[in-house]
């Protein structure tokens, strides 16, 4: 961590973490919208492209009693908090936050890929919000890749 004479963190805020935070916030709202639909707050789901109704009422929209959208809300919220904390002075070089960000986004993108596979080959219907979420998750994962060399540098 670079410091100036006063001991304050002089390193610039990591750009990739700022990007993750903004993306995670976008993903959070998409997941919240789907969750609002799953708990019955919104009426029939409005889909510009694709067939949201079919996907959201399929058995794959839930993991046991938990809607997939709730998992999404929790995941995006976690990533948002981690990324936000990770740009604060003092945390910018933290290997722990980096490790969690990377592993969290890896888990997220894998889960997203699985859901996308289900849409393409099992449910055979697309929900535009799920697709948007998958793209956001992929971008978050790409933005989290710089955490790997950062982590390795710290622990070596």
């Amino acid at each position, binding site marked *: 961590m670079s410091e100036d004479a*006063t001991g304050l*963190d*002089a*390193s610039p805020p990591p750009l990739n973490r700022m990007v993750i935070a*903004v993306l995670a916030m976008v993903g959070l*709202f998409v997941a919240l*919208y789907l969750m609002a639909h799953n708990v019955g*707050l919104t009426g*029939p789901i409005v889909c510009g492209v694709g067939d949201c109704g079919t996907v959201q*009422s399929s058995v794959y929209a839930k993991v046991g009693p938990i809607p997939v959208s709730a998992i999404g809300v929790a995941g995006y919220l976690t990533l948002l908090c981690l990324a936000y904390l990770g740009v604060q002075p003092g945390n910018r070089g933290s290997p722990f936050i980096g490790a969690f960000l990377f592993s969290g986004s890896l888990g997220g993108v894998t889960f997203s890929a699985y859901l996308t596979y289900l849409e393409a080959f099992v449910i055979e219907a697309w929900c535009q919000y799920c697709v948007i979420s998958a793209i956001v998750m992929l971008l978050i994962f790409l933005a989290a890749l710089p955490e790997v060399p950062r982590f390795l540098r710290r622990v070596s």
Partner: protein
Amino acid sequence: MSRGEKKRGSRGKGGSDMTKFGVILGVVALIGAGWLFWSVRGSVLGTPATGPLLELDLEDQALYRQLAQGITSGDPTGTIGIIEFGDYQCPGCGGFALAVKPQIDLALVQTGRAYFQFFDFPLTNMHPHAFLAARAARCAGDQGLYWEYHQELFRNQSSWSGRQSAVGAFLGYAQGLGLDQDTFEGCVKSDKYADVVTANMSLGQEAGVSGTPTIFLNVKGQGLRPIMRNDFQSIEAAIESALEDLETAGN
């Protein structure tokens, strides 16, 4: 260097980056929250069901029969019934409603020779407002003005068909007919009758309906017979023929 200068120095570029970051995050949060709030609020006020229900389980035969009801004009226990599967946004159905149905009403229903029954068969893949129109007509039926509204929809078909949203037009016709606005609007902006219209569509599919209007003759004891042509003369001829068959069968 004084302590103040050093502090300013260390916050230099990092500080303005953090500010930009904060602003962007804040803007995204505001837009996201606004969108979410608007989406949810719209439904709390009531979103009209504009398409068939995918989760409707029609395995229960009793429920199916209860939902797949048409609207009848005349005595449904009569010997001869004229059945139409129709779509409010289909021009052919409009032509039928404005040219043929009045003759049917006058010459057949009012004289007691036959009853008329309309089943909803909106071609939802082609006609975006047809499902809602079917529901709206039934909402008007709640207040006893089904047939008046039915005709009004067909009469104004070219006006509301091309619009982005037909809700405003449908509310307008209700007002024009003197329906209670609050009740009608509450009915339309909900999913009332979505199950009924969906069941009607399912019934039509079972009966082999693929286009609209499709006319059948329902002859008591003999079931449905399709009528190939939709003009009044053909329908009358089919009824004559059916009555002859009944007489022959009776002898």
